[in-house]
């Protein structure tokens, strides 16, 4: 009996624990069902096709028959982008190309741990997938015809973990193998045997959540964008071997999406012959790199960023990273974390450099220094090594500015003839800049005016040696405007002379401009590459955009206007006073009561969502036959309707939305996390979105409703190609390749079943240290916006909606969740908002992701001026705004605040904590915003490939995914076991108390023994 009791006790305890664990796990997983579904690639809905329904249900068709062909095309596209985007920075004595052939096979040595583990991409949301068939440097060079030093390769393979890069941010270690350890394993004689060239690959990896650090790493001076001691030792060793003739050439490959510090990397002492910037290369980029080194491909990339000689010459250097409001602890109601100011409230950055980002600073100051006869505090050669737009070729080109024609419609046609004056075929980039007048009006109104700004570009076709091509570039006069935040409070054209300037890069363009003005810079310019014309002052032509009046919206983000206090005052970098206004250190801001209260108020909807008594929309109103989402897309005969039927402003939407109940509306609005909810009542399918702008990194089978799964393609388990960093794409200056980039990702999306892509990244390369530069294009907003627009159009042509991000100012990763970014409105509009405006207005970008950081004091998703007035108003975005990863940045009760501001969806699931429930009555304005959000989500869905596979005869049904069924069965099983154990225990207790007796079947054989 004692044994039975013990067993019974153990049974009750064990089954009780099992039941508790099972129920808890179930609750947690159901609570986070979207994340779990993402993990298991499952959905909570199923599209059921009617038997015998053979209608065409592919509204966005793939041009590929199978994944094998699709992947091959994607890999070829990735290679093409790298071929045209890699930038040849240095080529002393024509060190490259290193022609190789079967008869004269060049033998080379690949150095650095990156020769086996380079950066194909970055870290974080756009992390490269493990496609398994990415081309490594060895493969890339071998296919190009080189023979690669096998011993050296083996050395790195055998010591992979010892020399591997580690950590992120200030904890990043570059490591790599030092020279002494290399030659101890691979003698110099072996390196000399493969000494036609020594190719050293420098890799730096960027990623989400951490910037490249100024200090703390094992780069020189602790700086991540300088050489580590081990790297330097190898380059020094190679320089010695080169001097003794045992290595013929040293080639440096910059496998870095960011700009390295050139003074450190390219010092003469290292005796490097050729430098090729390759960014992060994507799945097949090393094929392109090998081909460029071998001369099979003539490099034609041009820098999309300024490469600084020393990074502290960049004015943004001084206001980047970690800054804490002084006086924070004086406000006891502000949260602290581990005794320190909470990063979500206490951190800021001031864009003190204003519009002078990248070349806008370096070239303007250079021009002014020449015009003024000298600037004691600025020497161009000590500031910039390679200017924006710079790039060498294996041939020579000449460019002539043939004509600039006013089309009398607000545009100009610029004709440029490019002639290949060298000996091999190649492509060239044509860059058109504008000089705007900088006179008294600009000075008195504090309108900062860079000397030149990019307003047009094109890439030639391949031009044979001796051949030429004339390209026509359309330039918009609207790109000549400046934002006057002080007087007209809108975009204006300053009256005066405007000059269209052609240049091989921005610096030669400035020298051409100087020549036109009969001045001499650091090199001779060509005044024939400048055309000048006069425009009148105009403060009326650019004051309305998409029907909205353009005026100041962001005064509150300007330190001087928000605080209006001498203790919180910023002198922005000004052309009037370069030396006096150049940042001398980070701007110090003090916490004030106004700011503190504003920061805290955004945590509480009671503070910001005011009761308004406005009219509520209709809910659950069905008159006649229910309208389903498919009915908007397809008529009763199954024919696809004209898009005007379901255009954003079409009347059908009111009827459609009236049908939704309150509960359906909030189910839709509470379900995010890279998806939108299915609503079976109106046959809205769930949508699944991919995270990251550089390629689909999940297997094609990721979504059961994707073409790969529906078609049962045998390669459904394979992972799509991964593309080079978009800085490489920008460096192509070729919108055809941006189109190809978007086109291939769109194709992958159709097969994988992704109705959207959490990208394209449109933040600005404000500083070389930005962690996610590999996801963003350039320091220039015009180039960023137009390359992105081309990519967006192609992507969305496949029903894969772009979620342009991170709107706005997520230009650094440090303290990104809650970081207060302060800047003036001219800078915000001309530099940081402009790419988003172009992507929406010209590319038709459907959706956007609001950034984690604040604009001034206000969270971006809580900023009505930013989302409602600017993005959905001035820019005219028709889709919806999603937050960044909700669980990292926000609490559920904040979502109504965001909704009131125009942010439509959390990137997370807050269904169980439904924050809208309390707004059922008395908050009509919020309810109208919720309806608008629902409309935008529906609109984006009907325009996406998520409608593929659905016909008017289909049904969208809720289903319980396998993991939920399994958990339910487990819960039941544990429950039954626990109940059985408990019942047994009760029986034993009752028996023990003599309340029941065992039945004696046989008094002799089955006698129950007492204790």
């Amino acid at each position, binding site marked *: 009996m004692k044994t039975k009791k013990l067993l019974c006790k153990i049974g009750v305890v064990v089954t009780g624990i099992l039941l508790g664990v099972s129920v808890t796990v179930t609750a947690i997983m159901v609570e986070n069902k979207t994340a779990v579904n993402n993990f298991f690639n499952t959905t909570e809905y199923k599209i059921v096709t009617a038997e015998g329904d053979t209608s065409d249900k592919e509204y966005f068709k793939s041009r590929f028959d199978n994944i094998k062909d699709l992947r091959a095309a994607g890999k070829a596209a990735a290679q093409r982008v790298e071929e045209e985007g890699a930038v040849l920075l240095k080529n002393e004595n024509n060190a490259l190309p290193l022609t190789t052939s079967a008869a004269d096979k060049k033998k080379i040595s690949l150095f650095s741990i990156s020769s086996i583990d380079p950066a194909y991409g970055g870290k974080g949301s756009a992390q490269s997938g493990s496609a398994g068939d990415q081309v490594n440097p060895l493969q890339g060079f071998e296919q190009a015809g080189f023979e690669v030093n096998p011993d050296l390769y083996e050395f790195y393979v055998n010591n992979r973990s010892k020399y591997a890069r580690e950590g992120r941010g200030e904890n990043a270690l570059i490591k790599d193998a030092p020279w002494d350890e290399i030659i101890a394993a691979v003698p110099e004689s072996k390196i000399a045997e493969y000494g036609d060239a020594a190719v050293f690959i420098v890799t730096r990896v960027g990623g989400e959540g951490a910037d490249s650090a100024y200090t703390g790493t094992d780069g020189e001076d602790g700086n991540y964008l300088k050489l580590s001691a081990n790297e330097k030792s190898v380059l020094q060793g190679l320089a010695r071997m080169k001097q003794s003739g045992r290595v013929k050439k040293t080639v440096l490959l910059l496998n870095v999406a960011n700009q390295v510090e050139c003074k450190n990397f390219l010092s003469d002492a290292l005796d490097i012959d050729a430098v090729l910037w390759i960014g992060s290369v994507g799945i097949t980029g090393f094929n392109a790199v090998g081909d460029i080194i071998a001369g099979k491909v003539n490099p034609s990339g041009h820098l999309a960023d300024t490469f600084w000689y020393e990074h502290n010459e960049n004015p943004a250097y001084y206001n980047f990273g970690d800054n804490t409001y002084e006086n924070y602890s004086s406000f006891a109601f502000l949260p602290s974390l581990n005794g320190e100011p909470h990063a979500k409230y206490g951190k800021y950055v001031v864009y003190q450099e204003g519009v002078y980002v990248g070349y806008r600073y370096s070239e303007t100051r250079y021009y002014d220094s020449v015009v003024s006869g000298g600037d004691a505090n600025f020497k161009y050669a000590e500031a910039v090594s390679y200017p924006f737009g710079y790039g060498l070729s294996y041939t020579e080109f000449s460019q002539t500015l043939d004509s600039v024609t006013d089309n009398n419609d607000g545009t100009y046609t610029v004709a440029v003839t490019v002639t290949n004056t060298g000996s091999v075929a190649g492509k060239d980039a044509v860059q058109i800049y504008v000089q705007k007048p900088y006179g008294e009006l600009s000075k008195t109104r504090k309108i900062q005016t860079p000397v030149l700004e990019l307003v047009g570009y094109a890439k030639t076709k391949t031009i044979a040696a001796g051949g030429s091509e004339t390209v026509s570039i359309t330039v918009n006069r609207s790109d000549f405007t400046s934002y006057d935040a002080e007087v007209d409070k809108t975009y204006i054209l300053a009256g005066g002379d405007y000059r269209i300037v052609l240049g091989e890069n921005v610096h030669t363009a400035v020298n051409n401009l100087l020549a036109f003005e009969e001045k001499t810079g650091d090199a001779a310019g060509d005044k024939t590459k400048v055309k000048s014309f006069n425009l009148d002052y105009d403060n009326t032509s650019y004051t309305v955009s998409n029907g909205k009046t353009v005026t100041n919206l962001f005064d509150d983000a300007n330190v001087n206007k928000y605080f209006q206090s001498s203790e919180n005052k910023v002198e922005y970098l000004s052309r009037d006073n370069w030396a006096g206004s150049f940042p001398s250190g980070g701007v110090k801001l003090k916490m004030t009561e106004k700011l503190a209260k504003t920061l805290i108020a955004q945590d509480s909807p009671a503070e910001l969502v005011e*009761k308004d008594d406005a009219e509520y929309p209709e809910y659950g109103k069905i008159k006649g036959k229910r309208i389903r989402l498919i009915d908007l897309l397809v008529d009763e005969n199954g024919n696809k309707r004209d898009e005007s039927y379901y255009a954003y402003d079409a009347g059908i939407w009111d009827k459609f939305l009236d049908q939704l109940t309150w509960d359906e509306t909030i189910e839709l609005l509470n379900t995010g996390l890279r998806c939108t909810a299915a609503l079976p009542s109106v046959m809205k399918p769930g949508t699944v979105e991919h995270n990251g702008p550089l390629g689909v990194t999940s297997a094609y089978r990721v979504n059961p409703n994707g073409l790969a799964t529906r078609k049962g393609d045998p390669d459904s388990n394979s992972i799509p190609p991964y593309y080079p960093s978009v800085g490489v794409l920008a460096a192509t200056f070729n919108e055809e390749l941006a189109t190809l980039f978007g086109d291939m990702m769109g194709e992958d999306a159709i097969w994988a079943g992704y109705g959207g892509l959490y990208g394209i990244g449109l933040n600005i390369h404000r500083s070389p240290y930005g962690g996610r530069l590999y996801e963003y294009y350039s320091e220039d907003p015009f180039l960023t916006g137009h390359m992105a627009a081309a990519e967006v159009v192609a992507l969305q042509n496949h029903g894969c909606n772009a979620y342009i991000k991170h709107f706005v100012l997520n230009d650094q990763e440090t303290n990104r969740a809650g970081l207060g970014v302060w800047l003036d409105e001219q800078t915000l509009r001309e530099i940081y908002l402009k790419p988003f405006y172009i992507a929406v207005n010209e590319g038709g970008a459907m959706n956007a992701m609001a950034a984690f950081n604040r604009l001034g004091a206000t969270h971006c998703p809580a900023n009505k001026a930013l989302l409602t007035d600017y993005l959905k108003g001035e820019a005219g975005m028709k889709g919806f705004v999603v937050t960044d990863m909700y669980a990292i940045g926000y609490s559920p009760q904040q979502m109504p605040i965001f909704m009131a501001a125009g942010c439509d969806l959390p990137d997370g699931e807050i269904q169980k904590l439904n924050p809208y429930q309390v*707004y059922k009555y008395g*908050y009509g304005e919020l309810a109208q915003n919720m309806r608008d959000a629902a409309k935008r989500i529906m609109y984006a869905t009907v325009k996406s490939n998520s409608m593929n596979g659905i016909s008017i005869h289909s049904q969208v049904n809720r289903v319980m995914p396998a993991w939920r069924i399994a958990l339910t069965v487990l819960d039941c099983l544990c429950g039954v076991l626990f109940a059985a154990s408990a019942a047994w225990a009760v029986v034993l207790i009752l028996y023990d108390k003599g309340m029941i007796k065992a039945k004696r079947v046989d008094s002799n054989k089955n006698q129950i023994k007492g204790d």
Partner: protein
Amino acid sequence: MKKSVKAILISLVLTLSLAVGIMFAACGGNDPVTFTGEGSFMNIDMNYNLTLEEEDKTFEFVVTSKNEIEENGPISQILKGLGRTGTYKFENDVYTLTFSKPVKDANNEDTTTIASTKADGKYTIAFGIKGGEGTLKISVTTK
């Protein structure tokens, strides 16, 4: 003398009474008219209170919970959302309320004016508030 004292005292009392009366007249005013009712919504048992201020002819409709609730908590927020304000007039034995934002009338049509009805000497005002779950019907009556 005694009579004089008595007269003076009586005069003082009368004067004081008059002064007090004037003060009340000046500072006080008529009691507000109150309408009350009850309802239930989202499992919340509620009291409805409609207060008509005689002085400035404004009204405030407030909803409170019958049970103890957390201050500034979710239920408090919900009830706050049901509150309404406006102005009113009383003519021909009918109270006519003009709401600051539309409510629903008996036919579920949008309106800003609702008139009272009278039965058994009591006034009743009925209107609806449109929201997420359709129209919440509310009826309040004088005592």
